């Protein structure tokens, strides 16, 4: 049983298109996150959610819209994709803020 699962694992798309990534955790955690990892491996927090509520948006362009239908799911929709959006996007969860993070395996987005 995968603790944090994301789909799809790979996305390849053209500039200007819209894409979504889905994330589900079966750990019973209240807190979920989206991270972006660029080609240099830097991990950058994008959004933090607690019990379906957005807590932090780390100055991410509003082309990125997260949605949490329930506390086990956190999806990410990206509009009007740009070349600079190419990265690996990780979903993560934690029992509570500031504690151990459990990451999914990542979704590699390539924008052509």
């Amino acid at each position: 049983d995968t603790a944090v699962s994301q789909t799809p694992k790979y996305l390849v798309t053209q500039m200007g298109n819209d894409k979504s990534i889905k994330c589900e955790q079966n750990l019973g955690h209240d807190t979920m996150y989206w991270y972006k990892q660029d080609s240099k491996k830097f991990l950058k927090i994008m959004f933090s959610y607690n019990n379906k509520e957005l807590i932090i948006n780390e100055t991410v362009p509003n082309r990125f819209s997260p949605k949490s239908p329930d506390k086990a799911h956190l999806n990410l929709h990206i509009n009007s994709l740009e070349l600079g959006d190419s990265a690996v996007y990780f979903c993560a969860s934690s029992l509570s803020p500031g504690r151990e993070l459990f990451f999914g395996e990542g979704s590699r987005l390539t924008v052509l």
Partner: protein
Amino acid sequence: QQQVKQSPQSLIVQKGGIPIINCAYENTAFDYFPWYQQFPGKGPALLIAIRPDVSEKKEGRFTISFNKSAKQFSLHIMDSQPGDSATYFCAASLSGTYKYIFGTGTRLKVLA
């Protein structure tokens, strides 16, 4: 005040060597210092973590040394193996908050 500086950026050691990765933080309020290990194509996973009330923690071949006065902590890998080749991230967080700062990562290669 929110940075965590990690060095070196990359490291190559022979099998059996003891790679050491260093991190320095600025915010003295941080109270949780984890290390994450990331293999290619996978998400980061917690390796070992320490709280500032202890100066050292060992789990198997992995040891964290913590120097509160210097605001530094380091990861030592004893008897390193080729299977330890991965990217290692330090982090610092404040429990109960969404302040969770990652270092820039160290790519470790252990030669057989």
